[in-house]
């Protein structure tokens, strides 16, 4: 039973991360906009949910969509700022955004300072408190919802617009894509998903503090995104699972987590910039041959 709980906890964490990474994947993988501050959106979602449920007494079911909305709105702001920026400047800006957000969490008493907010209630459904497998079920449901959203995105003009911006902004404009509008949307949608994940995170841990959403967490999310494969449906969940499971399987790796993430990023950027299983990557080609093109790639 204890072992069972351990796996349920692990899977819950993986799926929560996968949702945030899926958001990052929309901003970075599809639309090609570097975002090194995704943890800030996770934090905005988590604190929105924590404040709404502990201080205003709202139900989780109201707080969850509002968390996504608040992150979405801040995403619009960051997107608007990023319109004129590209590559390294955009990277710097999003890092700065992460630090500023964390500073705000620390500074304003409403976020509970360095202790954060505790006593976040578990969601209640039909009079039952959701915990363990039931909470995993809830997280899985939100995850599936996000996968469906991602699938729809891939097939819509919105997704097409994102890909044209990633490929070439000038050419995108020449085919009628208003780059400003779609960059803002890419940040906002990616942020909104992180907001959802943040809310699920808060009600899972039942306490949140600024330290959960620092820049190092953004790097962790980035490693997951790049490892899994940029611009793919399966990438985020694969990357999250790998990065969370590796230190679990090899306990001694734990202390060297940041080194591991950095090493993974550097190696991937050097040898497989599209990600381990990204489009046209070595592994994806091999898998395609093996599976006869079933279910992989776009």
């Amino acid at each position, binding site marked *: 039973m204890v072992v069972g709980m351990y796996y349920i906890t692990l899977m819950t964490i993986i799926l929560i991360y996968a949702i945030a990474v899926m958001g990052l994947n929309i901003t970075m993988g599809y639309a090609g906009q570097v975002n090194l501050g995704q943890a800030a959106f996770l934090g905005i979602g988590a604190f929105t949910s924590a404040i709404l449920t502990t201080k205003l007494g709202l139900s989780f079911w109201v707080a969850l969509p509002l968390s996504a909305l608040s992150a979405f709105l801040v995403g619009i702001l960051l997107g608007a700022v990023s319109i004129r920026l590209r590559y390294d400047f955009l990277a710097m800006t999003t890092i700065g955004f992460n630090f500023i957000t964390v500073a705000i969490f620390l500074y304003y008493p409403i976020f509970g300072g360095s202790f954060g907010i505790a006593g976040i209630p578990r969601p209640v459904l039909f009079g039952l408190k959701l915990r363990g497998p039931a909470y995993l079920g809830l997280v899985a449901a939100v995850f599936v919802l996000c996968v469906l959203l991602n699938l*729809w995105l891939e*097939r*819509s*003009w*919105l*997704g*097409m*617009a994102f*890909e*044209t911006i990633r*490929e*070439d902004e*000038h*050419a*995108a*404009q*020449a*085919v*009628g*894509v*208003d*780059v*400003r509008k*779609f960059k803002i949307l890419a940040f906002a949608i990616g942020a909104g998903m992180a907001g959802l994940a943040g809310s699920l995170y808060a009600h899972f841990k039942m306490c949140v503090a600024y330290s959960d959403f620092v820049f190092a967490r953004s790097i962790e999310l980035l490693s997951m995104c790049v490892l899994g494969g940029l611009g793919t449906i399966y990438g985020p969940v694969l990357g999250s699972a790998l990065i969370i499971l590796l230190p679990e399987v090899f306990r001694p790796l734990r202390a060297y987590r940041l080194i591991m993430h950095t090493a993974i990023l550097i190696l991937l950027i050097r040898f497989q910039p599209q990600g381990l299983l990204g*489009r*046209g990557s070595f592994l994806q080609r091999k898998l395609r041959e093996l599976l006869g093109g079933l279910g992989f790639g776009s």
Partner: protein
Amino acid sequence: MDLAADKAILRTEGLCKYFGGIKALDHVNIHVRRGEILGIIGPNGAGKTTLFNVVSGFYKPTRGAVFFMGRRISGLHPAKIARMGIGRTFQVTRPFKNLTVLQNVMAACGRDAYFGLSFFRKYRTPEVVEEAMSIIEDVGLADYADQPAKVLPIGHMRRLEIARALALRPKLLLLDEPTAGMSAKEIEEISGLVRRLRDEKGITIMLVEHNMRVAMGLSDRMYVLNYGKVIAEGTPEEIRENPLVIEAYLGRGYAAGS
């Protein structure tokens, strides 16, 4: 303004574009008549590509205005101008490298979907695929439809850019050196394609061309730019005889001697 300018699909008025102290365009007044192939020639750095970038909205003019079908378009966003019916290609090709040829062309079929809120609709519908495929066949890339654009040789990439611009259903097509870096045979084919677009689809074409023989052979009328100014206008025959043009290209000595 001459009478012909009244029938113009595109017109510029005192168009200036300065980069610091450099006058890339200096009070340029040109017009493009509906249904013609208009050539823009001039030595390197004369302002030809700048003119295209201002017309298509990529640069804002320092002074002056551009009118397209009677509407002032200078100052509008390039995406808006594209949707109004001005397609363009780039001097250095800019395909969406990781998308297939078909996706590249389909991307431009979304010209209307990208505006407003209809972008949530599915893009890969049979109608869109059909429209894109027929354009791809027109430019002779049917065999490459499912290849990623990055594997195409340069000549095919230029065709792809033309196809992509055509998917906007443009009324005016701006071609920036469509034959640069091509073999004699490819140049022949592209010239044929440009002529067909005008004759069969009625698309007005404005073209920057370095290859003088191609430019003279294709154009109904030409403008010559030098140091950001229009120094001559006329039919290819008139341009060939114009002493100012000879001077701009070959230097004063040649002009005096001829």
